[in-house]
């Protein structure tokens, strides 16, 4: 789906959701979530081409593939967390949204810990083992 279609869909969904909100708040929220999911899914299908290109460039440059895997995982965690966080905020649950956001941050750090280890090992090898 092109960007014009996504924008039009978002505006139409917002207007219908606003109309419904007065009479039927729950279904209005569901409508918003459905619109979000549709836009997200149509984006993800175009994300694969980006992923392939980045992978090709990195393999040509001779960079270790584990780094890009960690980066990709972090991006995925960020996407999912952001989605859940915004849905919770739309439902008016700010505390839940903040907790989900915190969980996302912790998960990203846990995913990136092997990279920290790598940096530490490199520094240690440069200094010859002396700290």
């Amino acid at each position, binding site marked *: 789906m092109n960007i014009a279609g996504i924008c039009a*869909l978002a505006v*139409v*969904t917002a207007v*219908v959701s606003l*109309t*419904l909100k007065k*009479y*039927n708040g*729950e*279904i*209005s929220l*569901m*409508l918003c*979530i*459905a*619109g979000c*999911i*549709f836009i*997200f*899914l149509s984006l*993800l299908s175009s*994300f*694969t081409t980006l*992923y392939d290109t980045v992978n090709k460039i990195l393999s040509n440059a001779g960079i270790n593939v584990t780094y890009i*895997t960690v980066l*990709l*995982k972090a*991006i*995925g*965690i960020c*996407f*999912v967390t952001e*989605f859940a966080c915004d849905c919770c905020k739309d439902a008016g649950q700010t505390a839940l949204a903040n907790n989900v956001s915190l969980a996302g941050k912790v998960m990203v750090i846990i995913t990136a810990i092997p990279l920290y280890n790598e940096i530490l090992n490199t520094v240690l090898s440069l200094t010859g083992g002396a700290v």
Partner: protein
Amino acid sequence: MDVDMIFKIAAVGIIVAILNQLLVRSGREEQAMLTTLAGLIVVLTMIVTQISTLFSTIKTLFGL
């Protein structure tokens, strides 16, 4: 997923809202509440499969 899904949900919402108003005006509050609940469940079943599709797609794409 199709764009029709979004319009379907909007249609269900509008119909349920109208039915709810009608039933409330005619003094049948319990039936109005049950209608709202039924509409909510119908839309929820539609949404839940889509949410699971989205999350499984992200899971496979990013290798989580």
